[in-house]
């Protein structure tokens, strides 16, 4: 396989050599490894990597990926870290405009313009910075002889990967894991991984989120050693009886590889350690387990996030434990009744939600466990019961935290293309993508699939969201159809049909709006609503704001079909710097880095300041959400 830089220009090329997306389960060799999440089958490649920055593809080192390339002239960079935070490329905050606005004229390939091929648009662009990463690593001795993959949990925004001079593949979709098989080219002992990351590709059209525009390896990089029998994918399906009293768990497993004579043992325990299921089967490429009927099932919700513990033990033919997969899951149902009321476990769902960008004022979106723990603590303290992962999938452990803490999730797919249809405040979709443009369909379906396959086992996810502000078209309808096909147990959310009602019967189970005035919501809900109503964004907390929240919470009392909403947003996105004039540690925003055009302080809309201290408005949220925190 030969890499081709023109893949950057082609919306139909977005994954090459990437292993199929699968569930996010961790796997271990021994029980004692679980508590500290120190799997002897995983080797972190985080740390200091060699790094070369090129301002554009023309200036990049053409053969840096070769196994014997002399790296002595390379700098170093930390992985994970954004290239801009490391100081190589300019920090830039911009909202709807594409980041090349005013610098370059571009139209998405296959839409409008004199040349719709897209050829060279990114691959020969003068404004497409390149990060060339290299890491010499020593394979853990225990990994020798096993299938070994490398997993990139998040790389923005397009990357090519080589091992020991052999090309492995190419990936986009910055916010879901990309995994490559290293086995054919792996040496015992010393190896060299080379990664070439481009700031821009056709993915840029789909990743126009209102945020600082970063690139680089910003989440963990991990080597995974897969035992002779390995659980590659796991689908946990807890199903409740109609009376919500009893339930059954079905487990669908995909194993790869599978060694002859190996077995899989499935154990389910309740939270007191009582064993509810313990079944062993021969391992197979595809297999299912189904529990007996569990009586007196504990339901999962915000106040009682009751989780059952699943263990999957893989034993070899000699009976030796070779792999262990722990996973926690809960029982809950999310439905829409005949009156168009959203019900969780049969009770009306009230979303006391926030939109949450991943943010750390020193590290950008490369958030830490401490950041996430603090976010959960603040949410629980202030009666916030739901989070929308605006507008991309988050760090995997965030989903675990939401399961454990009973935070309802709207799990959003990595998609936002508002620059293609929202211009100067007006709707102008002349070159909207994904729209109904055939060449852009597979890319967004892949994003939907990555989101679903990775996170499908998380009890906290009540809604799949197709993305944000991407208008409506056949391709988004296809994403909706995908989620409906693979997951009948959850609801699908998308707001953009507001702008094209032709699609409203094909996209989104809920009527979702953003920043709707209370009287407009009354108009919808007072007139035989077709769908339940929620606000995917409301109460824009920019600066000194959040006045008048009562007008929204009053709707909860008035309309059972009103399901609440997600405040915009949880935390200011601003960057901590030391002011050279006063020496104070201060926060900087768009335009402060000579980045133009910019959207300045428009990313300062949080309930928290960028350093996680609460804004004064938080007590108001706590009050109103507390009144509906049932």
């Amino acid at each position, binding site marked *: 396989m030969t890499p081709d830089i023109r893949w950057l220009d082609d919306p139909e090329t977005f994954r090459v050599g990437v292993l199929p997306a699968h569930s996010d389960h961790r796997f271990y060799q021994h029980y004692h490894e679980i508590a500290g999440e120190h799997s002897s089958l995983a080797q972190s490649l985080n740390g200091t990597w060699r790094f070369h920055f090129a301002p554009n593809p023309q200036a990049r080192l053409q053969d840096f990926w070769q196994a014997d390339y002399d790296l002595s002239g390379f700098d170093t960079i930390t992985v994970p870290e954004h290239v801009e935070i490391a100081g190589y490329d300019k920090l830039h905050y911009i909202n709807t405009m594409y980041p090349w606005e005013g610098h370059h004229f571009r139209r998405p390939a296959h839409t409008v313009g004199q040349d719709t091929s897209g050829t060279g648009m990114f691959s020969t662009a003068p404004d497409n910075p390149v990060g060339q990463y290299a890491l010499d690593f020593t394979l853990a001795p225990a990994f020798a002889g096993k299938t070994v993959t490398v997993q990139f949990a998040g790389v923005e925004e397009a990357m090519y990967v080589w091992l020991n001079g052999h090309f492995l593949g190419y990936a986009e979709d910055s916010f879901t894991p990309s995994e490559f098989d290293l086995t054919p080219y792996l040496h015992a002992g010393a190896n060299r991984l080379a990664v070439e990351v481009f700031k821009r590709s056709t993915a840029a059209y789909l990743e126009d989120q209102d945020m600082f525009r970063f690139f680089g390896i910003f989440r963990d990089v991990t080597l995974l050693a897969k035992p002779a029998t390995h659980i590659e994918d796991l689908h946990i399906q807890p199903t409740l009886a109609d009376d919500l009293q009893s339930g059954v768990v079905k487990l669908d497993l995909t194993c790869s590889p599978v060694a002859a004579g190996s077995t899989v043992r499935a154990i389910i325990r309740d939270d007191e350690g009582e064993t509810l299921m313990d079944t062993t089967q021969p391992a197979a490429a595809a297999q299912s387990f189904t529990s007996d009927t569990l009586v007196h099932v504990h339901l999962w919700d915000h106040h009682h996030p009751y989780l059952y513990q699943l263990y999957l033990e893989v034993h070899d033919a000699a009976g030796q434990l070779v792999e262990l997969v722990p996973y926690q899951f809960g029982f809950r149902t999310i439905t829409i009744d005949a009156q168009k009321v959203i019900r969780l476990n049969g009770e009306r769902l009230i979303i006391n939600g926030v939109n949450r960008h991943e943010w750390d004022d020193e590290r950008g979106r490369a958030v830490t466990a401490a950041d996430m723990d603090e976010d959960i603590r603040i949410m629980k303290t202030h009666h916030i019961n739901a989070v929308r992962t605006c507008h991309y999938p988050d760090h995997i452990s965030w989903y675990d935290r939401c399961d454990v803490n009973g935070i309802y999730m709207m799990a959003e797919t990595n998609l936002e293309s508002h620059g293609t249809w929202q211009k100067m405040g007006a709707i102008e979709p002349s070159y909207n993508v994904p729209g109904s443009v055939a060449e852009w369909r597979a890319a967004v379906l892949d994003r939907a699939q990555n989101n679903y396959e990775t996170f499908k086992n998380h009890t906290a996810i009540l809604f799949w969201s197709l993305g944000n502000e991407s208008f409506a078209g056949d391709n988004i309808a296809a994403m909706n159809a995908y989620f409906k096909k693979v997951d009948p147990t959850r609801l699908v959310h998308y707001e953009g049909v507001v702008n094209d009602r032709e699609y409203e019967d094909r996209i989104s189970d809920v009527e979702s709006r953003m920043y709707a005035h209370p009287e407009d919501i009354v108009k919808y809900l007072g007139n035989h609503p077709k769908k339940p109503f929620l606000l995917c964004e409301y109460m824009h907390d*920019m600066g000194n704001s959040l006045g008048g929240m009562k007008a929204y919470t009053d709707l909860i009392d008035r309309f059972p079909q009103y399901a609440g909403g997600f405040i915009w947003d949880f935390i200011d996105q601003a960057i901590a710097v030391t002011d050279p004039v006063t020496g104070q540690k201060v926060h900087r925003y768009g335009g402060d880095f000579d980045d133009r055009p910019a959207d300045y302080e428009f990313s300062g809309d949080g309930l928290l300041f960028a350093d996680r201290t609460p804004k004064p408005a938080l007590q108001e949220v706590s009050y109103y959400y507390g009144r509906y925190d049932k």
Partner: protein
Amino acid sequence: MADTTNKKLRVIYGDVTLGVQSDRVQYIFNYTRNGLESLVVDGKEWLYRTPLPTFWRATTDNDRGNGFSQKSVQWLGADMFMKAAGATVKIDGEPIDLPIAPGNNQYSDHEYADSVAVTVHFTTATIPTTAVQVEYRIAADGTLTMHVHYTGNANLPDLPVFGLRLIMPTKAVRYTYQGLSGETYPDRMAGGVPGTYTIQGLPVTPYLVPQDNGVHMATDWVEVVRATTQDNTQLTPGEFGLRISSVDAPFAFSCLPYTAEELENATHIEELPPARRTVLSILGAVRGVGGIDSWGADVDKPYHIPAGEDIDFSFKVAPL
């Protein structure tokens, strides 16, 4: 001549000023400076400049988004360039001619009263203009009650705020108030928990772009504590305080080291000048902050300050 009067306040009928003295508090009203130039408690000065009505709040992000600052921009001029239209004086409840030269030659160095009231009349720098009165009433015990009146004029735009701004010569150490927790506004005060709160320093809420902040609604009293003066004989005299309390109804206030104009001029918090004063604004009317969006949605109507309606508020100033 022996002091035989039982009246409590000593009155000094100066050529330019009116001095009023009680046991602990000494006041000097200056006719050329449109009000109270000096408020000394136990030998410490509390005023940097004459208190003036205030009309402007530093533009919030929502104000910018919905164009409120443009619509109400006249009030910025009024805030900065207040014009006085004379003063009136009452002694023991009776109006007297303004006691300036030569009329004040009738008085002596031993003049006393049970109450003194000075009312300063202002005209706003707006088109059309409207009238504002600031009345100072000093009771026999030396306490000061202030009454501020705004005369409604429906031909003016909604007000950003209406209050009286007292600037103190040095930065306060802290303030303590009885009211609601946190920063509250008329449309964002339901979450405020009643209680007594002490705020150390004079923090400016660090919104990315400095803007109106630090308002406390529904306050019964606030005590401001300082520990420094500009008096070269006692630059650091130890802590001393002043208490503002409600008269008829709770009041709103903010206590910050900056004026609205100083906040307005900064695009980042570090651009604000070094904090050296205390700007205590006692507010009779506060506009809501809004929250529906930041690009056009207006503040809900009940939280506007319509210019056509009169506004009156009172508060008491006393030593701790």
